[in-house]
Structure formats: C-alpha cells, structure tokens
C-alpha cells in the first residue's frame, strides 16, 4: 500500500515536472497564449479592409443578412485602433456608416451616421456585452477583450481538426458576459479555432468556431466563422471576403467628414 502511494507520488511528480518542461519548451504561459491570440485575431497587420457578410439564422432557419465593408487601422499592437464600417445590406440600413475609436483603457468612442436624416449620432459605448447588429456576436467578440480581464489556465493540449491547439480556460476577474470561457488556440498562429462560453449555471450557451482559415498577404486569417447560441438555437455565420492587409488606409478616413461622405474607393 505504502509502495503504491510512493509510486503514485513519484509518478505525479514526474508528470508535473514533465508537463512543466513541456510548457517551458513551448515557452508560453496561458496568459501569453491569450495575449498572442488577441494580437493575431484583432491586430493582424497595421490595417485591414474586408467585406463582411453575416447571416443571422434563427432556430427555424429564417435568415437575415448583414453586409458591410470594414476598415481597421491599428495605432499600437494591443492598443488603440480605429474602425470604419459601411453597411451595404439590409436595404433599410444601406449607406449607414459606423465609426469606432477603440482605446485599451477606456470606453470606445462610437459614432453612427444615418443618411436619411443627415444625422451623426454619438452612441453610448458602455455595452460591450450587447449584440453587434443583432448577431450572436457581442461588441466584445468583434473588438476583443484585454487578457488581464481574465485569469487563464492551460487545461491541456489537443488536436482539433488536424491543428495542434492550446486549450485554455479563462475565468473573468470582474463583470463579464460569461462565467467561464474555454478556447482552442492554434499552436502555430494563435488563432482561436473554437471557443465555448459558459453561463452562471456552468452550462455551455455560446460556441464559436472558425470554419475556414486562409493565408492572405502572408497572414493567417479566419475567413469563415460561426457563433452559435445553444440556448436559443440562433446562430450567426460570418464570411470575410476581399481581405486586404497593409493597404495604407489613412488616418483621415476615420473622421466625421468620411462618416457623412463614405470613402467609396475603400468601401465599394
């Protein structure tokens, strides 16, 4: 009995030591993986232009379509960013533009332009858990979350669809939309290939999945993704088309001038 216990302890010790060596070999703590993933997912290149098509599909299969062109410019990796969005669809929001200045340590500045009444409206931005344009993505899902806002643990490593992944559990330190998030991060490019969001009852209620990853201008990019709400049966499928990186989007685009008069050479 004693021997078994000793062997078990030695085994446990060796296992812990081995896993320690393993993660040391990889050189990344869970926190670092999350930080790198945020840069790969939300801060790729210095700027980005993409045509985004979103299908919002309810449990009965009814579809709504949101189509927009998004311009993004980074001012500092992991720091300030500016976004410009121009809506093509649906018809009743066509030509509407939306602009966001994102700051690392304070609420976003957001402006919405409604062309029918020539109105530039300032949008209160204290709502990172609200849905983005009615989809299953929250504002936080589409603009990122600071790594320090959660405590991260490497649960294990796992192969997901032939990709080696870090599986990381993140528990929010403060108020959050979820109580636990589990992410599968690709070991090679740190892109999130799958994410699970758990609610207060510790039940899985939202699930993110990257369905297609392509190399564009040397940058690995998720070009198809889906977010499922498992409680309502609603899901949102997103396709990125015409992705361009580092095309030199100038700072002046992100201004009231272009909010009122969309820069067609960029958003067409």
């Amino acid at each position, binding site marked *: 009995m004693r021997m078994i216990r000793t062997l078990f302890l030695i085994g446990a010790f060796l296992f812990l030591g081995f896993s320690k060596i393993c993660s040391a070999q990889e050189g990344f703590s869970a926190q670092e993986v999350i930080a790198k993933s945020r840069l790969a997912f939300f801060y790729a290149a210095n700027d980005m232009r993409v045509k985004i098509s979103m299908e919002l599909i309810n449990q009965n299969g009814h579809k709504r379509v949101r189509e927009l062109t998004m311009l993004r410019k980074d001012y500092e990796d992991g720091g300030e960013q500016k976004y410009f969005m121009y809506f093509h669809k649906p018809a*009743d929001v*066509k030509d509407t533009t939306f602009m966001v200045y994102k700051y690392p340590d304070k609420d976003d*500045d957001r402006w919405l332009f409604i062309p029918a009444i*020539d109105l530039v409206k300032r949008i209160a931005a*204290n*709502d990172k858990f609200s849905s983005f344009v009615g989809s299953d993505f929250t504002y936080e899902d589409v603009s990122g979350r600071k790594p320090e806002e959660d405590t991260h643990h490497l649960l294990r490593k796992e192969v997901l669809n032939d990709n080696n992944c870090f599986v990381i559990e993140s528990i929010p330190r403060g108020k959050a939309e979820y109580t636990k998030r589990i992410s599968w991060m690709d070991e090679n490019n740190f892109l999130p290939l799958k994410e699970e969001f758990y609610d207060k009852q510790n039940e899985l209620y939202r699930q993110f999945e990257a369905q297609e990853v392509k190399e564009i201008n040397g940058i690995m990019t998720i070009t198809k993704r889906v977010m499922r709400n498992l409680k309502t049966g609603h899901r949102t499928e997103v396709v990125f088309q015409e992705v361009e990186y580092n095309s030199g989007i100038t700072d002046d685009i992100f201004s009231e001038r272009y909010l009122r008069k969309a820069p*067609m*050479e960029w958003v067409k």
Partner: protein
Amino acid sequence: MGKVNLDTKLIISAVAMAVTASQPIFAAMPDMHGFAEFDYGAKVSDDNTKRDDFNLFEQRLQLKTNYFFEGENYLAEKRASVHFKGDFTVDEYFSGKTDFELREFNLSLTPYNNLDVKLGRQVLTWGTGDYLFVNDLFPKDYVSFFSGRDDEYLKKPSDALKMSFFPSLANVDFVISRFESNTIAEGDRLSFFDSFQGGIAGTNSDRDLLEPPSRASNLEYALRIYQSLESHELAFYYFRGFDKNPNSYKDETARQLFYPRLDVYGGSLRGPVMNGIGNVEFGYDNSREDSEGNNRLIENSKVKILSGYEKDLGNDFKVGLQYLYEQKLDYDDYKVNLLPADFVFDELRHLLTQRITKLFKNQTVNVSLFNFYSPSDKDGYVRPTVSYHITDQWKSTLGANLPWGEEDMTEFGQMKRNKNVYIRVRYSF
C-alpha cells in the same frame, strides 16, 4: 408636402445640367433602392379638422439611387456623385391625392483635398439634441412628426449649397440655402392654436402665411465650426436667415403672419461622461426685426440651453434624458406693449424629455417611449412605438402620438386634439 413646382424643376435642371456637362454621361442605370409603405393613423380625439376618423392614411413609394462618376473626366477625378431620392405618395386624407416629393437630388464632389461641396436638394442636420433643435435651423415637418410618419420625415430637405472645409485647425461647414418654412399644423390635417380664432382651430382657420420672396437678399446662411477635443466634440454655430415658424404678425386685420428675420449664435459640447454620452448646447436667437423686444407682433429674442445624457444599461436597453430651458429676453418690453385683448405667452419654458429604448429578439423588436414634459407649460407629448422587423425586407410599426396640455396655447397643449394611434407597414428593397 413639396409639389413638383417651378423651384423643384429648377433644382432638377441645375443638377442635370451639371451632370450632363461632363463626359461621359451615365454609363448604366445605377442600382435603385427604397421602400413601399402603407400608413394608417386612427384619430382618438375630436377636433374640427377635415376628417374625424383618421389623420394619416397614405401609401408611399420611395426610390433612391446614387451614381458615382467613373473614368477620366473632371467629375470622376473629383470623386463626384449624384444622389437622388424621391417619394411618390397617394394621400387618402386628401381623397387619394397623388404627389411627388423630391427629397434629395444633389451633386457632391471634392474639388480640393480639404473641401467637399454638395449642391442641390439635400437634408441637413447638425446639433446635439434628440428631437430638440437649438442650432439646427434647417426646415422641419411637424405635421409628419405629429401624425405618425417615420422620423425621416421630420426633416424637410433644403435647396442648398453646402461647403465643408477641412483645414487642420478645425472643420467648417457653410451652407447657403433658399428659405423653406417648417411645415406646421394649419387646421386641415392637424388642429392647433389659432389666435385669430381665439382657441384650437381646424378647418375654420383662415390665416395667411407670408413667406419671404425668393431672391438673393433672402438667402439663408448657416455656419458650423467644429473640432474634436480627444473624445469630446466642440462646435460653434451661426445662422442668419428667418424664423422657420410663422409666429409673428404682419397684418392682424388681414390675418397675415410671417417669418421675421432671425440670427442665431450658439455652441455645443458632446462627449463621454459618467459612462454615457452627455451634451450641452446653447443658442441665442436674435429676432432682428424686433431687437428692442417692444414690438408685440414679432417674436422676442430668446436664449435656449439644452443639456442631455444618454446611457446604455446593457442588454440592448438605453435611456436618454434632456432638459431644455428657454427664456424670452425682452419680456418686460413685450408685456408692456401688449394690448388688452392679446394672448399672453410666458417668459420661461422648461422642457424635459426622456427616451427609453429596449430591443428584443436579436434586435428585431424595438420598443421605445419618448416623452416630452414641460412643468412650466403644464403640457407634454407621449410617443410610444413598437416596431418589428419581420424579415430584412418587411417591417411593421405600431405607435401613438399623444400630446396633452392644460392650456390651449402651449406648444403641446394646442396639439392635444390630434391624438392618434398608427400602424405602418414597410417593404424595403
């Protein structure tokens, strides 16, 4: 409602000439968008207007298109585009009268890197208020607003030249426009307070509204200078033109009212405060034809101070609050000069508004309540709406317009007999 009158034709031909003067002409028919809509607003209070059972019953087809110039020509180089938007309506209130309203037809271009120009019919808006306007003196349609048409129709288009300059120091908008009055209740569709009738009037109203004649000396000028201060936006405004409401008397015996000259100077600041968006705006209205304030027939000069706050409480629930203070500046002079039979308007007005919006079902259902309340005028106006995007194309809206007031001559009190409940069904394409 704007008809296809001579002025409209002039605008159309001016823009058309500018367009055809360049080569090549339209290469292909651009995409057409818009909507078809049905509106019905049942009256829930009695008055003396044209109809007892409804004050809104119409079908509307809006068509809009944008054309962007391409190729090697001046207009393409200057990133020129033409925007058109027009509404065809069949108005059952006036026994099926058909109409066409040209809402936008303008040429927009960037002749220099830091100059944008927009010429033609266009909708213009600035300022920080929500349904309250201090420095936005562009024309409004309050008949649409009170009868339940979409918010889009609160703003009337202007025939204007807008120049926007973007030097590094600040941004400047300068607008030259033809006078266009506000569309207000005149007794046929909506009842209102008519001093000549001594109370709330409908079809018995026989006022004569005299607009300033169309000529160069009657053009209006509006200026806005704005700049961002980190996350805040600071703006200054100047307007030189006419009062948009016919609240002044030209000839009492002939029941003539007119739109006196008006200058407005103002400023605004908007930005994040206390986890929401706050705004303050002030305006000084100089009633130029009564600068002493002793003419009882012409509107007094005024100050207006507006402050507002909007906060997102999460879960698609937003709350907005506003407070507007208005004061007539030469009230003593106004009062001294009143005649014994005159109606006496108050010196001060305090107005509070509140907007609550909650979205449901993946933001396809919008429940909103807008409330105006004036403790000084003892009146108010409740605007509840529920709208549902059945699909991306189909949207239905159910709403009500419920103005109320203790007195007949206050802003909302005079509208109290126009209460309605309306339904709107729209197909967008």
